[in-house]
């Protein structure tokens, strides 16, 4: 019967199987909690009998997920907000910093791609600034901006600007001269050439840069929120660690993965719409 299934269905079946086997091994490998009577005095004092002290089994994580996702937007004070609210804050920060970066990186990348003088002049700065870990900017950002919220957005801005800038410049510089000549022989002005010929020609490379950037931004926001605190999925992870609630930690790790995947697939979709074959 399996032989008649399509390749995609076989792969999906295998994925489910791997998930079930993985969860089963995980569940089995968690030692059962001892009953309170069996604990020594020392174990009782250090919390050895607490169910939260061990790595939780998947059944508990699933229960937590159900509990959290059935009411994602509750707000019970600064240290107790629903997962939906936390993720919402993170996405808001990521998108704000990311869009600011795009607004600057794409026009600037265009300029660098069009002019080899601009490219040569700006290249040393890009090469020095690009490898800096975005979190290294955090102290400076906190000092200059004096606002933790804005500092987190700045960190996202600074980490997502480079792939977009470099890819835009690369894509624009690589537009085939024939296509530019087509624009020239049709007497298109500079702006019209930029929008009707160079932009669509470079779009696949530009969107690839945007896709890399959103991936990096989502990686960085978790770390940034652990530092600045207050709200966001990164803060949530750290807060649950402080509460020693490992079930919530594992659940939020999974949520970070799911949201990251959704963001990436959105750009995958955009990439397909601007793609062309020569």
């Amino acid at each position, binding site marked *: 019967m399996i032989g008649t299934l399509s390749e995609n269905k076989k792969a999906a079946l295998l994925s489910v199987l791997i998930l079930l086997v993985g969860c089963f091994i995980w569940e089995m490998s968690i030692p059962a909690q001892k009953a309170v009577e069996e604990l020594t005095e020392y174990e009782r004092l250090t919390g050895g009998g607490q169910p939260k002290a061990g790595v939780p089994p998947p059944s508990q994580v699933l229960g937590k997920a159900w509990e959290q996702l059935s009411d994602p937007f509750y707000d019970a004070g600064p240290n107790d907000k629903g997962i939906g609210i936390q993720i919402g804050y993170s996405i808001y920060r990521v998108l704000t910093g990311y869009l600011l970066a795009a607004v600057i990186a794409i026009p600037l990348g265009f300029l660098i791609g069009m002019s080899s003088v601009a490219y040569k002049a700006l290249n040393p700065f890009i090469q020095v600034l690009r490898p800096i870990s975005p979190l290294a900017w955090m102290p400076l950002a906190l000092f200059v901006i004096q606002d933790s919220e804005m500092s987190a957005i700045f960190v996202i801005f600074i980490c997502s600007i480079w792939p977009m800038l470099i890819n835009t410049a690369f894509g624009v510089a690589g537009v085939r001269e*024939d*296509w530019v*000549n*087509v624009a*020239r*022989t*049709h*007497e*298109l002005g500079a702006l019209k050439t930029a929008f*009707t*010929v160079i932009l*669509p*020609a470079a*779009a696949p490379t530009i969107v690839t840069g945007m896709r890399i950037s959103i991936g990096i931004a989502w990686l960085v926001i978790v770390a940034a929120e652990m530092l600045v605190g207050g709200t966001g999925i990164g803060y949530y992870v750290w807060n649950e660690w402080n509460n020693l609630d490992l079930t919530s930690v594992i659940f939020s790790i999974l949520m970070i993965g799911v949201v990251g995947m959704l963001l990436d697939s959105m750009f995958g979709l955009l990439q397909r719409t*601007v793609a*062309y*074959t*020569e």
Partner: protein
Amino acid sequence: MANAFLSIEQLTQRYPDGNGGEFTVFENASFGIEKGEFVCILGHSGCGKSTIMNILAGLAEPTSGVVKMDGQHVSGPSLDRGVVFQNYSLLPWLTALKNVTFGVQARFPDWDKAKVIEHSTTFLAKVGLTGDAIHRKPSQLSGGMRQRVSIARAFANEPKLLLLDEPFGALDALTRGTIQDELIKVWSDTDQTVFMITHDIDEAILLADRILLMTNGPNAQVAESVEITIPRPRNRTDIVEHPNYYAIRNHLVHFLGQRSAELSGQSGGSGMHQPKTVRIDVTDEADDPEPAPVLRAVEG
């Protein structure tokens, strides 16, 4: 010739040769093209045909010399001079139709959308592209169909001068034949002035009113202007029967095979160096009897 529709005067192109000196591709090239004329230029690789084409298109600047069209100096690209590039140069993210409307919109900015589309589809139909094919992207079209789109784009713009840079260079012989026929058809409908680069002698005889012959580079010259004394309409199967066909063909083969190398490097001096007009017509005994015996030897 000073009053010709298109006049090329003492065009010279030099590049630095990398050792501090200069490398002359061609010098003092001067010729004229009349309105409605179809002129081909033949020569070996490296004689600067494509450079002349780019200068006429306004995509390159000559080292010295001028190009005048309708008495006006040509500088920079213009919609008055349409170009069909060897590699088609279609925009791959647009459909065949949109590639043509792209040009038409630029040429006739006042037209409304329906008129632009109608005009474009008419010209696509003239080169045999109708129905579904015009809504496909270039990557979904064969090489021949892509070049048809490119030709339709150029003709739809109704430029004063049409420049064709080896338009059939990348096509197989059968496709090339079909598109040559279509090109003749569109050209005779529109009365367009055409300047075309080719490597193919038979193609040049079939299409052209006049063939310009270039000597080998460096220091290439436009040495001769050969009139094609075969009446139109021509078609590829009948044209070979015409008594002048092989006389002209032999002259061209002889030039490209031998004389282009012999004449190469002879500086034409600084004056207006006009190509020598060659008229070969064995049906008319009064003119140029020299190639006639060659013809009989071949035909016999």
